């Protein structure tokens, strides 16, 4: 059968008019679209790998405390008699310098990381996307002001700025997340502004204006949905990068603090136990790596299917 066969232009519609449509029929287009996405996604090994990593990560974040053998390890329980044990049957990833089970801490750490990732990208997108749309759509001095400030932030590498902010506010996970959110939004402004600028020129925007749509309507119904796919892609990638950055600050000693089982902070402590107690830093490091890898592969896969530029049917 031929795929793109359309009903002829003058096809009569009286036969179908009466019958209420089933869900499948009404959403045939969406279903096909999603199946197409799924098909393209499945084709790529790396995208699937990314998706599975992310799913595992989300499951761990959701159920972590109930599946680990020593849930109290995450809240600072100590057991000095079993400190720094290598991986074994009881302690799968070994124990740390206070005798806490590293496996439990790494698994429960997924929650902390998820929280970090979601909050940072969430805040960044919440600040950046409206500003970007505003700048792109309004133009003029509004755009000039917003973009100047954005460029200013972009000219200072995020990590350096975040470092300064956390150093000033004092170490801690909240401050760290706050600092990273402050440096994270400009990326969204830039992305969305560029996208808005091009969408703004599209005929359908003028078409919407010609039927009397107000600016907020246009922004919400026309511009935003069309910016969405790059935003989703970026957010997916940023989830990973935010977790990584927070871990970096944790490593410098300015991020999450014990007994919070944050991976970066764990490595920060664990690095002093290299190389003889290799497992201590290996597992949290691997957890960060796999999580960030997962989100990045997922984002990359999403870009392949959502961004028509890199799509070739």
């Amino acid at each position, binding site marked *: 059968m031929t795929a793109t066969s359309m009903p002829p232009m003058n096809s009569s519609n009286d036969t179908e008019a009466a019958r209420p449509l089933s869900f499948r029929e009404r959403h045939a287009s969406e279903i096909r679209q999603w199946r197409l996405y799924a098909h393209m996604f499945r084709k790529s090994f790396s995208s699937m790998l990314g998706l599975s990593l992310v799913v595992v990560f989300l499951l761990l974040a959701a159920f972590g405390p109930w599946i680990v053998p020593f849930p109290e390890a995450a809240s600072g329980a*100590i057991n000095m008699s079993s400190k720094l044990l290598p991986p074994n049957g009881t302690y799968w990833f070994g124990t740390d310098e206070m005798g806490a089970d590293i496996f439990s801490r790494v698994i429960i750490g997924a929650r902390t990381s998820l929280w970090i990732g979601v909050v940072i990208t969430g805040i960044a997108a919440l600040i950046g996307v409206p500003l970007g749309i505003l700048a792109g759509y309004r133009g003029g001095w509004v755009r000039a002001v917003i973009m100047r400030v954005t460029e200013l932030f972009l000219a200072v590498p995020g990590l350096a700025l975040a470092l300064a902010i956390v150093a000033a506010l*004092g170490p801690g996970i909240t401050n760290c997340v706050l600092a990273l959110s402050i440096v994270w939004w400009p990326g969204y402004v830039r992305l969305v502004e560029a996208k808005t600028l091009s969408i703004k020129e599209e005929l359908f925007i003028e078409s919407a204006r010609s039927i009397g749509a107000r600016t907020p309507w246009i922004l919400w119904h026309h511009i935003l949905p069309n910016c969405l796919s790059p935003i989703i892609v970026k957010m997916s990638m940023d989830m990973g990068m935010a977790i990584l950055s927070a871990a970096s600050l944790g490593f410098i*000693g300015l991020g999450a603090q014990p007994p919070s089982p944050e991976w970066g902070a764990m490595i920060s402590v664990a690095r002093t*136990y290299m190389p003889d107690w290799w497992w201590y830093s290996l597992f949290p490091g691997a957890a960060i790596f796999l999580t960030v890898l997962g989100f990045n592969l997922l984002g990359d896969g999403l870009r392949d299917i959502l961004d028509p530029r890199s799509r070739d049917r």
Partner: protein
Amino acid sequence: FERTDKGNVIVFGGRQAIPVLDPHIRYDWSTRMMQQAVYDALVKYEGDPADIKPWLAESWETSADGKTWTFHLVKNAKFHNGDPVNAEAIRYSFERGLKLNKGVAWMLKDFLAPEGISVVDDYTVKFDLKAPYTPFLSFLPWWYIVNPAQVKANEVDGDYGQKWLTDHEAGSGPFKLGRWEPNVLYEAEAVSDYWKGWPQGDANRPAGVIYKIIREPAAQKAALQRGEADIVEGLTPDDYVQIKRVPGIAIEDHKGMTTFGIKFNTQQGPTADINLRKAIAYAMDYDALIQVYNGAATLETSPIPDAMKGHIDVPGIPRKDLAKAKEYLAKSAYPNGGITLPYVHVAGLEEARRIGLVLLDSLKPLNINVEIKPEQWPNMVANGSKVETSPAMTSVYTTPVSTDPDAVAYQYHKNSWGQYFAMMFYDSPKVTEMIDKARSSSNWDERAKLYADIQTQIVADQPEVFGMLQNRRWARRDYLQGFQFSPVRFTGEVDLYPLWVKAE
């Protein structure tokens, strides 16, 4: 070590930079280690227990009222540029330290004015104190002597040569400065004709010492194992246990004078309640404190460290006793616990963090929650300077700068409020009075008795959880000889002068 054509250069691996070398501006362990290498003082601490040895001063005497000290200098001491070390140099150096009012100034400024120092003759100098001050001598090892001629030549806008002395020296010590690469390495080159000679003999004397900054413990360990560094400080307690087994590496493990306490805010908040303080002190798992150090520590038996004169083992100092802890808790305003107390430690101080975990675990049975909060040192000190901002519990390590018990006792004097080590805002008129009395008395027996009472009273008031005295440890290659420990030095600080390499 590194072999050069002049001889062997010993490499010391440390974590802390030396931003300012000026002996009258700064002192911390790394800075003082280098200051001790390039400068001399009138006297010097040596040995364990620490003893005051004559150095630039070969003898001294005190007047009967304890207010006048006269020092007789050695005649052969000379600065690195050849100038003799004379009484004027001594006077100038003390005047400089006092006038700059930084670094070491606090030790003497209450008792000594610049005018009180006088040159008697070329090799005799006299100090007239404002009041009798028995600990006077115990501070002098940290007052290094600079060459006035060199300093004055490099003065800018009457800054007493501060700018220049930041990375230059004008001393008479066994070493002079070699390469000075901030944040990378600092080199001290041995002075071949050091006026006091070399204890290890001229043949063994090293060509110099490089203090290399290695920030990561893993890298330090690696450097030591590869022989790139001959001695390192700051490894983790577990590292010491591990590395001890590596052939060719020896551990220096000595009992120190650095006390650790969890200071309560005794003036405000829940910890103003002595019963709560006692409850916490009895709930603390003291054994775990030792385990944190893998046994390389001893529990405090008094606020005053063991190695200090006048120390007594205070009877009944709290040890873990949950029943007692609960008893005290019942008497407190929080009979059922249910509170969260902050525990602040210096960000990056690994052991303090771990002790926080121990505390957290120990207070669980009392239903008291602990929030572990690292702070940058400046912030912590700033918060701790006022009753209102001082947290309920702060972990504080203190190394007394002298061997006189006053150095510790005075921390509990009301005049110390605002200092980081007085974060508990301890207010006991009785103790304050005894301290004042003890510092002006020159009769040791009388003082000893006073200090015993002071210690007992402080323990009874429980302004802090008395922790442990950690051992001072270094890991070194076994060919490194001449290591001399002295507890009065700071953690990490080593006297570089007697070190030498025994080459195979």
